[in-house]
């Protein structure tokens, strides 16, 4: 499937690197516009309506996030390209949006483009982009929503509503306070990285729990979560886990 793309980066060197790599590695991407100026980038997006935008984060006067906010209906898939910005990368990951780091690794680029190409046919970009913009404006971590791809499409869930993530054969079942559990094709390791470590603790190789829902700890090595969920704590994690609970 051919995908139309626009590249926005304030450095001409970065634009040249990306264009060269796309030509060599991702022949399905057709670059229909490129610019070094964020203001011009907005114009290009509105007039050319690309399916995919490669967007630098740190740019003069207007950064990549601000640019995205200025577009009323961001219907395109975004792949952020950044030298270094840990804060930005967290926010992007939470919304299942693609990103690559400079200097660009060929495998990372191919993977990001493959996922973006798949997503374009699902038409989920607008929702994800809007969620990212919303999250960037929220200060408290728990209030932010994360985007979870699952069989029917995307689920948008508040982090504080997640009680427990259960790993099963590479998939993850996520349990909530109110709604029914959902299945994600991401592994439990993915959620372990995604969710804040202050609130979420991996008590067992297949159980990641929200510590705010712990009701009881049993000496034989089990925790009781909200609504009588009884889960085992790995033997080698017990001491660390107990220390952590005591300090909360």
């Amino acid at each position, binding site marked *: 499937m051919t995908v139309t793309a626009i590249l926005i980066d304030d450095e001409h060197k*970065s634009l040249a690197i990306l264009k060269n*790599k796309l030509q060599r590695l991702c022949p399905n991407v057709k670059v229909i516009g490129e610019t070094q100026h964020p203001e011009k980038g907005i114009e290009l997006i509105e007039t050319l309506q690309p399916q995919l935008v490669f967007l630098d984060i740190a740019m003069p006067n207007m950064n990549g996030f601000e640019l995205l906010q200025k577009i009323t209906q961001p219907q395109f898939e975004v792949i952020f390209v950044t*030298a*270094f910005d840990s804060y930005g990368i967290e926010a992007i990951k939470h919304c299942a949006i693609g990103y690559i780091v400079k200097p660009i690794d060929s495998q990372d680029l191919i993977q990001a483009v493959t996922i973006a190409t798949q997503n374009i046919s699902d038409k989920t970009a607008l929702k994800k982009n809007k969620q990212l913009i919303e999250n960037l404006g929220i200060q408290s971590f728990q209030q932010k929503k994360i985007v979870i791809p699952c069989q029917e499409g995307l689920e948008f869930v508040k982090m504080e509503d997640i009680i427990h993530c259960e790993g099963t054969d590479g998939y993850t079942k996520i349990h909530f306070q109110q709604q029914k559990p959902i299945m994600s094709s991401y592994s439990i390791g993915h959620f372990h990285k995604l969710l804040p470590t202050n609130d979420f603790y991996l008590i067992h190789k297949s159980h990641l729990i929200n510590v705010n829902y712990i009701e009881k700890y049993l000496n034989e090595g089990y925790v009781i979560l909200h609504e009588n969920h009884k889960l085992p704590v790995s033997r080698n994690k017990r001491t660390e886990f107990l220390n952590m609970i005591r300090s909360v």
Partner: protein
Amino acid sequence: MLGEKNIEEIFVLLSGAALLIAVAVVILFYTFITRKNKLLAEKAVSINSYEKKMIELELHALRSQMNPHFVHNSLNAIQYYIQLNDIDQSENYLTRFSKLVRQFFEYSRKQTIRIEEEIDLISNYLALEKLRFEDKLTYEILCDDTVDREATIPSMVLQPIVENAVNHGIFHKKTAGKVTITFSQLSEDSFCVVVKDDGIGIKQSKKLAKNNPHSYDSHSSQVLDERLKLLEQIDNWHVEYTIKDRAEFCDKQGTIVTLIFKLPN
């Protein structure tokens, strides 16, 4: 008569004994106080050296922070020349970068470096930024003849300031910008470094940073403030640090940072 004499003797004896006891008490009290003072002083010294050690460790940690933005942007530029198959420029960039990293490692381990070395580090750093910004950046490093280039200054103080001038001042400017660094001797035991740029100015730059509160940049000036405070505490250096928006006192744009180093006695 006899009785009176006896009473007198007893009185003398008693007062003698009282005097002896009093002297003994005074001596005991005195030795006790001196011992106590000595112990306290020893304790104070050990606390002091402990604190000093802590501060030194902290200073070390603060010195050795190389901006990850700069590292990745430099590597990105090298990737560009590799793609172009421009062997000379790729090698030039790579060796310059490697030299700078080496200087960073070497100087961040030291408390002080020679002014000569500081000038070398800064010009090497700016040369690398120039490769990235191309025509958008020019720079000049001026050093008065009166400055003793062999004299030492605290290491890694100037580089972050020059980096701010490039990344905050010049980066956001639409046209080409210039950074000027001037070293001058004020008196025998003090000298001054001025870092001047004609970028967007600190006021505008702070406004932009507000939109991106968690970015790495916002803490680099904080690190410098902490370092200067610690340098003062450890009683080695007095560094006066002022930062001004040029628009406030002349019709020019940009930021001017003045550092006055007073040598420790």
